[in-house]
């Protein structure tokens, strides 16, 4: 309905292959970015920024990471939490080694560490598939979270066995640590997420993306057209883990402020996997939807009783939340197994052919 595609024709392949070939989409995205950067900071409270926006963005990035691996390359992983942890601890160590290098750079660097770790734990994927591989990644998960406890060097021998984020500044403005304003942290996180999302979209639309999807859809045929399976899969693990690592680092440095092994437990891995599935396998857009849904739902559930002035104690609400989330996930898988992204596509298509049904 909003679309006016007549007369939007392409005279070059560059234009034809653009991320958003349709003008109206470009406008939409531009609007969202403007709102994200210019409007939200002024209208939303610290609470919103701190416990909704930042986490959702961080998780979206992690979800994108997992989606590259599971959604695009078809390799099921339950090690996401671990890889996020690697990023976080790596970044922590880097800050202690190079206190003067800008934190943003360190965060982006720490991703490489988890990329390396990811690649190592990706090795089994050359031999095994499906749930077997999932279990293999569980090994990574448990080994890593064990390391986060048992290797004191990782957290500089703090008695608390947790990492405390030091204060780091950019042009004198604190970005991390207790003194950093939520807004500042939000802006940094948003920028990094936008940048990395853009890169991800470039990757999946290009040669590498096609190789990944080829491996996902039919590895035999993929090998036959000259795709080296092991390189492609390992690359998928590495890049996926890079995204998760950066997400993990941001989670600690721009959101939680401190973290211990627990923050990167198996539950974290499952949480991210939920986001990917609910959002839609093989869709970047979906990763955002999934993160927002899975993270937002409990918050909403938590506040609705208060809103209606129902006297429920926190514990009960907590339990109810669990139940409802569980039920919703099942309901959701039944309603739309292809995830929120699919709903979005359908809606968009409807708008494009409006007033016709198809």
């Amino acid at each position: 309905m909003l679309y006016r595609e007549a007369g939007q024709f392409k005279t070059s392949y560059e234009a034809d292959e653009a991320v958003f070939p349709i003008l109206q989409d470009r406008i939409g995205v531009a609007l969202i970015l403007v709102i994200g950067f210019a409007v939200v900071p002024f209208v939303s409270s610290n609470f919103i920024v701190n416990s909704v926006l930042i986490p959702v963005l961080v998780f979206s990035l992690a979800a994108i990471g997992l989606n590259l691996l599971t959604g695009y390359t078809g390799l099921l992983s339950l090690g996401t939490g671990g890889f996020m942890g690697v990023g976080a601890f790596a970044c922590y160590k880097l800050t202690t080694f190079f206190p003067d290098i800008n934190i943003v750079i360190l965060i982006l660097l720490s991703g490489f560490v988890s990329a390396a770790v990811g690649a190592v734990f990706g090795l089994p994927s050359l031999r095994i598939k499906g749930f077997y591989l999932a279990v293999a990644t569980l090994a990574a998960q448990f080994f890593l979270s064990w390391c986060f406890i048992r290797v004191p060097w990782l957290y500089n021998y703090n008695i608390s066995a947790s990492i405390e984020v030091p204060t780091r500044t950019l042009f004198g403005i604190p970005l991390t640590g207790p003194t950093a304003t939520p807004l500042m942290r939000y802006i940094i996180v948003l920028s990094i997420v936008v940048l990395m999302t853009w890169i991800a979209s470039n990757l999946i639309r290009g040669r590498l993306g096609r190789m990944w999807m080829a491996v996902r859809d039919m590895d035999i045929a993929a090998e036959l057209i000259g795709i080296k399976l092991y390189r492609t899969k390992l690359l998928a693990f590495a890049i996926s883990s890079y995204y998760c690592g950066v997400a993990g680092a941001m989670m600690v440095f721009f959101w939680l402020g401190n973290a211990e092994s627990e923050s990167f437990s198996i539950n974290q891995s499952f949480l991210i996997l939920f986001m990917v599935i609910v959002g839609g396998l093989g869709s970047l857009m979906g990763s955002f939807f999934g993160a927002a849904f899975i993270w937002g739902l409990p918050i909403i559930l938590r506040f609705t009783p208060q809103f209606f002035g129902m006297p429920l104690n926190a514990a009960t609400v907590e339990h109810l939340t669990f139940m409802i989330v569980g039920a919703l996930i099942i309901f959701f898988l039944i309603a739309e197994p292809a995830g929120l992204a699919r709903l979005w596509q359908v809606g968009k298509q409807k708008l494009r052919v409006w007033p016709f049904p198809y």
Partner: protein
Amino acid sequence: MDLLYKVFIDPFVQMGAAPDLLVQTMWEGLVAGVLYALIALGFVLIFKASGVFNFAQGIMVVFAALTLVGIYTLLRNWGLQPSNLAAFLALGLTIGVMFVLAVGVERLVLRPLVNQPDIILFMATFGLTYFLIGFGELVFGGEPKVMIANELYLPKGAIDIKMLGGFVQFQKIDIAAAVIASIMVVSLGIFFQRTRIGRALRAVADSHRAALSVGISLEQVWIIVWFAAGIVAITTGIMWGARSQVEFSLQIIALKALPVLILGGFTSIPGAIVGGVIIGVGEKLGEFYWGPLLGSGIESWLAYVIALIFLLFRPQGLFGEKIIERV
């Protein structure tokens, strides 16, 4: 050099030096293994018959145990005497609950999701897990509980046997666990091999149409396996509960069943048992003899690493059918 010694020589020297300790460790491993095996059994049952990788098996164990204890306390509060009667009544009711659960799962989860990709069903069982956690805590409260072991006539105390120049201690409950587990496995084995339903179940594993030809609807089969898995869960719950206590953290050990499955293969009942024992014994030995080298707690991941290494050499597991790539 020194390290190599510590890794490859020293542990075995210790074993030789104190064989009684070795036996003790292996026994504990064995028992743990048996319980892993029981959980794995739940997975296998469901995977075999419905191809669903039931992540909820772990929480089902906890849930079963909680329900049992919960109902028991309820009955007692109503002043039901004697305690044993209450206990067994509770057990019966719990079994009923597990049946209701099985039916519910089949109606509300499996049936609507039939012929969805595995990953989707897998995720659905996650949802189920969340639901059961929430529900369980809501009804029975989150705090740890004590299993009603002696009310159920489960033995207490230990037997010390003098052997190999030392004492090896066998907890009676552990022995009971081992025995009951074995009974469970054997009976399930018979159930699968001998009975008509059992054959139907195996038929389903191969093809759903085959099952129908045996005259059993898919729905029934699913209910049956989930119910069976529920029974297994109760047993496991009682055993674990009796050894430690009943709490939600138990569900994490459920994940231990995964490496067991890897070793045993997703579809083999004996595989589950053997795998369970290997993992149990392996991780206990590793913890006891190699743990100190790395700082303790390695049993949290050792099982997986064992499975992982194992996978690289035999992707389809010990007893799993061979996977052949078709072009």
